[in-house]
């Protein structure tokens, strides 16, 4: 196997997605309607390849230590591998849910109906799926990012396509308003974390987070910080403020306080499948980035950062839940619930890998909690928005409590899917949300610090509050008067997608351990940025790479 082949295998999924995106882009402009309709299929195939490819690759060549899997700025970490598979799998479900979204646009309906002559300037099918894949690729790149530059680019690649998808998938003034808010505030957030990155670079002098392409000699943010912390020096203000700004800027993507304000408006304005997309993809990218960034500091986090995150976590879950209580629109309530769930995940971020001990055989780190919760939230969120997307009220999207009232009597299966997802969001056993919350809160609890225990208590109270509005949705579905005006949109794919997600919520809740997920998690959460597979051309130098902290000092000695 050539060196280049190895390197490219690391970004294989992203490359497959990019190629798929380009194909969608071109075929979306095809003259034949049948070819144009094949674009979602291509997107699906490329996502499947993303899942199967790496597995086949590693099955064909079990990775031995001392082999290269490090591509300039991107690292093949177990966490990245886990997140890539997660993103691709949930992306596949998202694809099912948004399979017919472009078809529902007025101009496309018009074209289909009138049989008008083909006009490449009017069709928007291919682009939608192209941007869909691009955004997923961006999220995957975030997971494997190993440098500030790369993180910045990957975050941009995640979010830029979402702006376009947001405004083009719904022809309504609401969607345009949502886009202008999302985009402009997003640009503000980008500027903020960019300034944060600048300060981090300023403090440490490097942009690489964990590993450098030049394994010998150059420092990384992690090694520099580790050295400072080892020597007991106070961390420079520039680093702390830079980290703070970077976290705050990225917290726009995860919709955490104070960068959450856009969330409800944007989720409401977006078309429902798009909302499901927005609630998962940027959030995953954001959390991956946060884990990677904070991993350079190491857990327990420095006090100022921990204090900030603590306050953010408390505010995020509380604001999300109390505002969720106030809503008359189910979509908005779920948007606020999305905020609240980010708050829960911040708990895991705070706990970090503090509870990990060497040789520990079980999942017990907050990082693992976050990774698992991303899956748990991903499926539950997708199922609930998918069900919402299956309903129409006089051709408009259903979104109020009234619209879903009595759903059980008209569409018992949609109601059951919704119920499962809501129960999972509440965190009731044996659904995946319960396991997710345990994995998130237990590590924080086991740190034994009073602040963390209080945080867990607050999180539990918040879970109880959130149950009120989730159960209100469930009550409307099961006990409300059915509304005749609401009808099911004939969307087999969308319903299948949510159905699979709901099933996954049950199956993962019972069998996360049996499916090997916990083992994967334990590996993935071992240490953010830790490259298990070392470059091949440092053979004989493994000892040095294992203990990265003495590399900079070795070179520093020569200065």
């Amino acid at each position, binding site marked *: 196997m050539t060196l280049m082949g190895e390197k490219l295998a690391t970004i294989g999924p992203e490359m497959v997605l990019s190629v798929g995106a380009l194909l969608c882009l071109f075929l979306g402009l095809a003259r034949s309607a049948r070819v144009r309709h094949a674009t979602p299929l291509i997107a699906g195939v490329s996502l499947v390849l993303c899942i199967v490819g790496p597995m086949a690759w590693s099955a064909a060549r079990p990775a031995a230590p001392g082999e290269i899997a490090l591509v300039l700025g991107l690292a093949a970490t177990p966490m990245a591998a886990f997140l890539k598979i997660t993103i691709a799998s949930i992306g596949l479900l998202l694809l099912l849910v948004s399979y017919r979204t472009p078809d529902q646009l007025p101009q496309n309906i018009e074209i289909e109906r009138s049989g008008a002559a083909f006009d490449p300037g009017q069709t928007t099918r291919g682009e939608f799926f192209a941007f869909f894949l691009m955004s997923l690729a961006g999220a995957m790149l975030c997971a494997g990012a190993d440098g500030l530059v790369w993180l910045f680019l990957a975050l941009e690649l995640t979010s830029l396509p979402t702006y376009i998808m947001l405004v083009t998938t719904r022809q309504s003034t609401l969607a345009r308003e949502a886009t202008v*808010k999302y985009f*402009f*505030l997003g640009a*503000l*957030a980008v500027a*903020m974390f960019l300034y944060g990155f600048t300060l981090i670079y300023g403090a440490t002098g490097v942009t690489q987070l964990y590993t450098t392409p030049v394994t010998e000699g150059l420092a990384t943010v992690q090694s520099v910080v580790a050295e400072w912390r080892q020597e007991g020096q*106070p*961390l420079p*203000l520039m680093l*702390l*403020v830079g980290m*703070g*700004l970077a976290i*705050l800027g990225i917290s*726009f993507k995860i919709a955490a*306080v*104070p*960068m959450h*304000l*856009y969330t*409800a*408006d944007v989720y409401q304005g977006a078309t429902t499948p798009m909302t499901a997309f927005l609630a998962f993809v940027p959030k995953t990218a954001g959390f991956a980035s946060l884990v990677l960034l904070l991993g350079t500091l190491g857990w327990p986090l*420095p*006090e*100022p*950062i921990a*204090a*900030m995150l603590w*306050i*953010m976590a408390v505010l995020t879950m*509380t*604001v999300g*839940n*109390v*505002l969720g*209580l*106030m809503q008359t629109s189910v979509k908005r309530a779920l948007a606020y619930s999305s905020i609240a769930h980010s708050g829960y995940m911040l708990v895991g971020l705070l706990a970090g890998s503090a*509870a990990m001990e060497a040789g*520990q*055989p*079980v*999942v*017990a780190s907050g990082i693992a909690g976050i990774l698992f919760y991303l899956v748990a939230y991903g499926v539950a969120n997708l199922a609930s928005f998918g069900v919402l997307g299956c309903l129409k009220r006089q051709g408009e999207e259903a979104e109020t409590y009234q619209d879903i009232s009595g759903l059980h009597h008209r569409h018992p*299966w949609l109601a059951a899917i919704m119920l499962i997802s809501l129960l999972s969001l509440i965190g009731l*056993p*044996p659904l995946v949300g319960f*396991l997710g919350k*345990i*994995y998130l809160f*237990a*590590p924080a609890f*086991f740190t034994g610090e009073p602040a963390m225990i209080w945080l867990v208590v607050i999180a539990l109270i918040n879970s109880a*509050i959130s149950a*009120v509005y989730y159960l209100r949705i469930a009550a409307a579905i099961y006990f409300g008067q059915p509304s005749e005006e609401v009808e099911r949109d004939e969307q087999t794919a969308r319903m299948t997608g949510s159905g699979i997600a709901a099933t996954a919520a049950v199956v993962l809740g*019972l*069998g*996360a*351990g*049996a499916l090997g997920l*916990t083992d994967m998690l334990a590996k993935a959460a071992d240490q953010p940025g830790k490259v298990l597979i070392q470059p091949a051309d440092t053979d004989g130098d493994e000892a040095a790479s294992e203990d990265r902290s003495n590399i900079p000092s070795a070179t520093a000695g020569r200065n």
Partner: protein
Amino acid sequence: MDVSMVKWIPWISLLSAAICGVLCFRRAWGVWAAPVTITAIAASFVVAMLAAPSGLLRDDDGRIADALGKSPHDIGQTVKAIDWINLNERDALMDDGSPPATLEEARGLADQHQSARIIESGEAGYSVRVPGLSANFSYYIDPLTLLMLFVVCGIGSLVAIYGAGYMKGDKGYARFFAAVSIFIFAMTSMVMGDNLVLLFLGWEMVGLASYLLIGYYFKKPSAAAAARKAFIVNRIGDLGFALGIFLTYMRYDTVVISEVLAMATSPEHVADWRDYWIPFLLMLGALGKSAQIPLYVWLPDAMEGPTPVSALIHAATMVTSGVYMIARLHPLFENSPYALPTVATIGGVTAFFAATIATSQFDLKKIYAYSTVSQLGYMFLGVGMGVRYAIFGGLFHLLTHAFFKALLFLTSGNVMHGTHGQLDIRKLSGLRHLMPFTCWLMLAGCLSLAAFPLTAGFFSKDAILVGVFEQGLAETDPNRWYVVLGVLGLVTAFLTPFYAFRAWFRVFMGPEKYEMGTEAHGDEEEHAHPSGADSHLIDEDHHAHDDKPHEASWLMLAPLFVLALGALFVGIIGYKPVKELVEGSTAVISTGKESLISADLNLTLIIQIASGIIATLGILTAAYFHWLNRQAGQNLADRLAGPIRVLENKYWVDEIYDLAIVKPLRLLGWIFQLVDTLLVGGLVKLFGWLPRLLGQLARPSQSGVLHGYGLSMLAGVALLVLLILLAAR
């Protein structure tokens, strides 16, 4: 078969539930739900009976070893199915990576870790467990588990076969079997679970299946109300149970049952306040689930569900889970001086109380519902003793009761089926010729329930009473209160045959007279008649005798024969094996006051003779008043109009609850409005409104203006950065 095979038992049912779920999609597919479910439950039964015994600890002569004084790790085997919750808990190892070999090493190792504890792990020596939370899908197989599996899967498969006939043609055929499969999954998980979290999960899921099935005819308002009532009443109990589990975890740093029991029974264990409270909290859960005073009110109403469900869930299996739980965690109850007496008292009083109500009910299913409550009271009385024989009696009664009560419910289902939902015993009479099989099958059930000598109920009930009197008259430590309970049990033993045979004589003996019910088919109101020549036996039957009560189909009768055989003979066949099982289970590991290890022969004989006479008397009384001379019965009833009205109205307990909880708020509204608003309402409102208040405060931030959002974000960022600067320096 290897013992590790038992780990498949719950999952077979889950798979069946999934398949039935899929079958729900098409009406035409629904017919396959029954074979799938029956196969699954029967397969579970076979696996359990073949695999589980190989995991039990045996004596040299091949008998199941006596559990007294043994470690729970020895008498049972833990089989791990899948990882579930596994946080932080791990075994500490010595420096060289090996587990500690001696106690000294283990002690030294434990000192190095915070709140670590030493566990004796059988022949493997010691392990030092560093605390965390470990709750996996792993199963603890001991004789008690085996007994419960026998009941759950055995009765379950019979009821499922019956249900296949009973529910035929119902719109929600597959839905019914999906719920039954879920129930079996939950129930088997619960009885096999090796940790309290899994036990609680199963506990909640059987509850869920129960509500689903009570509310099966969700369009009937009474069914929906009954489901709601069951839900609310059980929440009270489950809250206590959850708190109990939490307290147990706080006390023992683990939720794994065998470890908890090992610690609770170890001689070094010193009980503290938590040990006093744990059983009471756990007991609350048991009272709710097993419908004991004061949380019994939901069970009679739960008969709104389809009759097979009543038989399976609300008579044979689920309601006994409280008994099971007390038996399983018996050592915890023994650690608290007042816990077991409380259990026994509640059991004894409930047994009597419910039996009196049952004597005056007219609805066949209601009678059996109160009878169930009463018999559960017996079981509580049994497991509430500190005596082996009584515990054995309680658990044995659990088994025999499962047989005869399931039989009774199913035969009453036959009656219901044949008479279009008519269950009022005043409106049915002399059906023995129309429904001969049902008649004699029900007789078998009634005899067993009445504890007629040599039937199954006779042996198990006597075992309980013998145990009670033994404890009460013990030479070393007599406790007269138990004598009172024993006498109460004997009185109940008179009432039981009376109400059982009252119903039977009414319905099957006497002149043939009946009023058909109004329901189309059994208790199924939205039953759609399948049309065409291929429609099933029952339906042909149904059409042929539309105006007459008719016998049920063979599919429904076949399982009843098995149950009847059980109800009659399981007492003789099962006495020794069950005793062996119970004495080898964790329920008795610390229960073994020497003088009380096995029953006193004389006492046993006296009680057996006495209760045999009492049972016969009860039957004769019922025969006189309700068969031979119904007019006399009527006269007596008229004379006793007052007391009977009390009983008919179930002591007005529902009304008292209504009066005690609902009315004061309404009736004394004017007077107590202020207090009520301030204290009760105020608190409720505070918890309700605090989040809303916060929401109102936070809402203006969502003004909808882009710039406002930008400014708020900026302000937030500035404040947080300020925080960083302040915290850093």
